């Protein structure tokens, strides 16, 4: 049974990756977990180190959490010098996630990473909601998203995965724009803007007032976004959002994802990704599949149904 997936030169030995910002730089969790994953997406790396936002950065919500980390990261130089050597040793694909506040900064960070042989692909974060200049100003403008891809594409032969935000009306337009500019894949979703208030102090629980919602609570939103995007693009869609079990992962494949990333659940059980890999393979074997590809987009739609918001003349939406 085939479990692997190739996205250009990126070879994933299985369909389960760990999401940016939820597995550190890959080595922290490795001390007590078995890293048999399709890939590790690193914490977002920016040109200069970033200290991140003041406390409080975390608030728990119903089956989810809000974060306002503020892209705290070591910066590209320290990333290459200190974080890449141990990452290179791991038997899994390494995808470097890049965040920036200008097109030039994205390009500059990527160029510095080009000489590092251990990086298998880039994920471009145009969707961080927690810093003024964290990319969301790109991610919520279709033309700015396209501009980022257009600027990066000529300067690398490595696969470019563009990570999209759900905080837009039609994510399919953004996915299509990425495809047209030569992106190899899109991943979705980053966190949803949310907030939480302490009713006794009347203060917001996060220092930045709003933050990014993640975890099982957002899974239905993520599934709908993956479904919508995968209906219009031919490049692979990588599904992210609230995945906690192999059943969740299968659901994402059925909705149209070619692979998935596990985020928040790494905090609760660092072995979640490995367990999902095993569970999905067992499910595929039991149901007699030759390849997990057979599941991708294989949802059985009711007659006449299509994703709301998709640019198809027949679509009605459900306002």
């Amino acid at each position: 049974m085939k479990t692997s997936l190739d996205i250009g030169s990126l070879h994933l030995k299985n369909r389960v990756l760990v999401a940016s910002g939820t597995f550190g730089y890959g080595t922290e969790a490795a001390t007590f977990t078995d890293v048999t994953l399709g890939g590790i997406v690193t914490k977002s790396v920016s040109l200069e180190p970033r200290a991140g936002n003041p406390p409080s950065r975390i608030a728990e919500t119903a089956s989810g959490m809000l974060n306002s980390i503020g892209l705290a990261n070591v910066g590209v130089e320290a990333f290459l010098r200190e974080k890449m050597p141990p990452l290179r040793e791991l038997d899994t694909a390494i995808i470097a996630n890049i965040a920036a506040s200008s097109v030039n900064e994205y390009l500059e960070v990527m160029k510095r990473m080009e000489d590092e042989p251990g990086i298998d692909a880039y994920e471009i974060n145009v969707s961080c909601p927690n810093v003024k200049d964290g990319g969301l100003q790109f991610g919520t403008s279709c033309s700015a998203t396209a501009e980022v891809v257009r600027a990066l594409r000529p300067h690398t032969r490595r696969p470019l995965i563009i990570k999209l935000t759900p905080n837009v009306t039609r994510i399919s337009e953004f996915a299509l724009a990425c495809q047209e500019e030569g992106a190899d894949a899109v991943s979705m979703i980053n966190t949803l803007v949310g907030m939480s208030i302490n009713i006794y102090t009347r203060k917001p629980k996060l220092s930045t007032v709003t933050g990014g919602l993640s975890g099982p609570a957002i899974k239905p939103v993520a599934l709908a976004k993956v479904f919508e995007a995968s209906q219009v693009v031919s490049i692979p869609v990588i599904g992210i959002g609230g995945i906690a079990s192999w059943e969740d992962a299968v659901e994402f494949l059925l909705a149209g994802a070619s692979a998935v990333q596990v985020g928040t659940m790494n905090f609760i059980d660092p072995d979640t990704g490995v367990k999902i890999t095993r569970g999905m393979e067992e499910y595929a074997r039991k149901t007699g599949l030759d390849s997990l590809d057979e599941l991708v987009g294989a949802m059985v739609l009711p007659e006449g149904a299509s994703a709301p918001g998709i640019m198809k003349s027949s679509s009605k939406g459900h306002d």
Partner: protein
Amino acid sequence: MNKFQREVAITRNEPVARDTYALRVHFPELSAIVEPGQFVTMRVNDTLNPLLRRPYSVSRPIGDECEFLYYVIGKGTRILARKRVGDTVNILGPLGNSFGFNGDYETAVLVGGGIGVAPFPFLTSRLVDHGKKVVTFLGARTAEMVLSDNLVNLQVATDDGTAGFHGTVVDCMDDWFGAHSVAKPKIFSCGPTPMLAAVQSWSLGRGIPCELSLESEMACGFGICQGCPVEHRHAERTYALVCTDGPCFNAEDITFKRP
């Protein structure tokens, strides 16, 4: 440092003070290597609500077992309080650093507020092993909430005056230092943030070495989410992580001021 994630069996779970329970589990890998001040995170059930693990200090290792003290305050601790002997809980640990109990001082001054006394039984036994003098100041809201088991040389302060000193634990300690000569002290403190801030300014003002065990909201507990910052005292807007750089910090190194 090795960490273990295990579904472990509960061997004791009973109230020891008002709204406060002692929870003991069979976890030999943990009890063999844990140091005073370190913590674990517990997943209280296998559903997705509550979602995050909860951090708890190891109160004391006892042979192959570890004991925790928890104060019932919300969703997670209410679930813990319903567990029975033989039930299991998923524990990950040990996490974080330990108190710097070695070193050049003679008298360990333990200052705890509320459930902040949790790590003190373990710390006390190590201090006694190392031949240190120990004096312990405990602050509680009321007499029924004083947790005095496995501690030595106790001075109690209560907010309502129902036991010991009527007032804050820091005032109690201040009085006591006024009336006694304390040989080469070092303070170890754990409790709510406002109390820690008061202990910090008290000790810095007198040039007494001091370690504080901090709390923070935590998502992971082992250094990957960056969710638990505390600001460096001498470098504004730069942060240490409570879960991996701490929870125990030198009072000189961190600041509680909020923007």
